[in-house]
């Protein structure tokens, strides 16, 4: 009886992945949108997640945010942030980003010792920038395309590539190895609530800005994911899918040339900046 409770959370996500695999493979790919072949499944998943969020997660996260003292919330955020820094370090190094990887290693070292087991984020104050790398980004960095959008039950938006990278992320999560099982589950639960609380403002904004929340979330997420893989420097050619919407607005008298990324040779020719 007790042994069942121990591994509930990983089992739940395992179940979610299995359900996803079954539903996806059973040929739900009959949607009209070529960019979202699993749309029917994704929308169903989204509706499910939305219900869980609305009834359970968001109220709890709101309560957590309103009631818990600020320093406790910061401590919780810092603690789990420190754990994720370790996996970020590994992934940065896997991507050949030595400096970023070593920065993350230093962050973990500093925060775990002087930062009292990660509760204080002194590394950020020391100027060591936090990175946010995971195995999906590592795969993307090495050229694996993201594949179609996939909305996972309970786990949220993802892509085919990132979903397949999940087991690796799970393996690289230090909290998974926390020994007393009760502590591990409670910790995982707190982490989920803490993350949801940090997204409360963003989700409220989504409600206002989006005409269709699923589409808005999907399109925004795919762009963000690509931006993360490229660390913010997405080459403009890669970003624009269809060539027929290049910036040639018919309302303009003089059509602007579709200028590529800042022309560095031109910058070299004009060294003096004229203001």
């Amino acid at each position, binding site marked *: 009886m007790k042994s069942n409770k121990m591994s509930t959370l990983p089992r739940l996500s395992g179940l979610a992945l299995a359900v996803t695999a079954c539903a996806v493979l059973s040929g739900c790919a009959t949607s009209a949108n070529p960019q979202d072949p699993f749309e029917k499944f994704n929308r169903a998943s989204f509706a499910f997640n939305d219900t869980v969020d609305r009834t359970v997660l968001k109220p709890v996260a709101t309560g957590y945010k309103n009631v818990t003292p600020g320093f406790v919330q910061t401590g919780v955020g810092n603690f789990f942030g420190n754990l994720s820094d370790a996996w970020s370090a590994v992934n940065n190094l896997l991507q050949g980003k030595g400096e970023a990887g070593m920065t993350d290693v230093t962050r973990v070292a500093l925060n775990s010792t002087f930062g009292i087991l990660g509760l204080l984020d002194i590394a950020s104050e020391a100027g060591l920038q936090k990175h946010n790398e995971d195995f999906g980004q590592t795969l993307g960095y090495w050229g694996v395309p993201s594949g179609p959008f996939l909305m996972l039950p309970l786990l949220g938006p993802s892509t085919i590539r990132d979903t397949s990278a999940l087991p690796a992320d799970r393996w690289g999560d230090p909290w998974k190895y926390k020994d007393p099982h009760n502590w591990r589950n409670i910790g995982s639960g707190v982490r989920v609530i803490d993350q949801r609380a940090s997204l409360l403002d963003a989700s409220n904004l989504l409600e206002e800005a989006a005409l269709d929340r699923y589409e808005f979330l999907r399109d925004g997420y795919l762009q963000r994911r690509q931006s993360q893989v490229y660390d913010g420097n997405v080459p403009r050619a890669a970003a624009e899918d269809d060539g027929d919407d290049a910036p040639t*607005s018919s309302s303009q008298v003089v059509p602007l040339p579709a200028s590529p990324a*800042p022309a560095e040779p031109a910058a070299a020719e004009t060294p003096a900046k004229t203001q």
Partner: protein
Amino acid sequence: MKPIAHLIATVASVAFATSVIAAPAPATNEAPDVLVKRISAEVIDTVKSDKDIQAGNRNKIMDLVNSKILPYVDAEKMTAQAAGRFWRQATPEQQKRLSEEFRTLLVYTYSGALSTIKNETVEFKPMRASPTDTDVEVRSQVNVSRGEPITLNYRLAKGDGGWKIYDINVLGAWLVETYKGTFTAEINKSGIDGLITRLAERNKQLASKPLNTPKK
């Protein structure tokens, strides 16, 4: 040259040069990153210092957005790009209405975002563009108290009225690109008029909603 003529020429050229330098540069010559920095700082300072706005006075924030930011936004270009190939199929009347509704939606959304500013700071990155570019990207990030900074980039194009913003990137997602899917789906479903109606309904909804209240 005779000394007198030389003297007159020198005085005249100095006077001319001084008058040109002393004259304030016309607004159209402001560099795009300077422009964005300026309006960004103005808006944020106002939001932080105004008690009414901190209390959630939506109208005041919208006035702020309309007066300080909107003059530098090319709403029509934004709408045209979000609508994609359907823009050319729309009548001028439809284009005008669509731009207006989209612009209003963006003002509501942006005001909502501004109202959540407490003590974040904005940091601008050096702009990588040559002086002759007519399409640039200005990069910045919002330093928040928790987590990684939020990237906030702008795309500006130089037109007759100077530099204007036509796209915004938050956390890696460009606004125009993100709305493209929604626009296309809605137009396919109920045409351009259907999209306009949908936007208008949403704007009416947002107009009656007070700021900073928990959603049901």
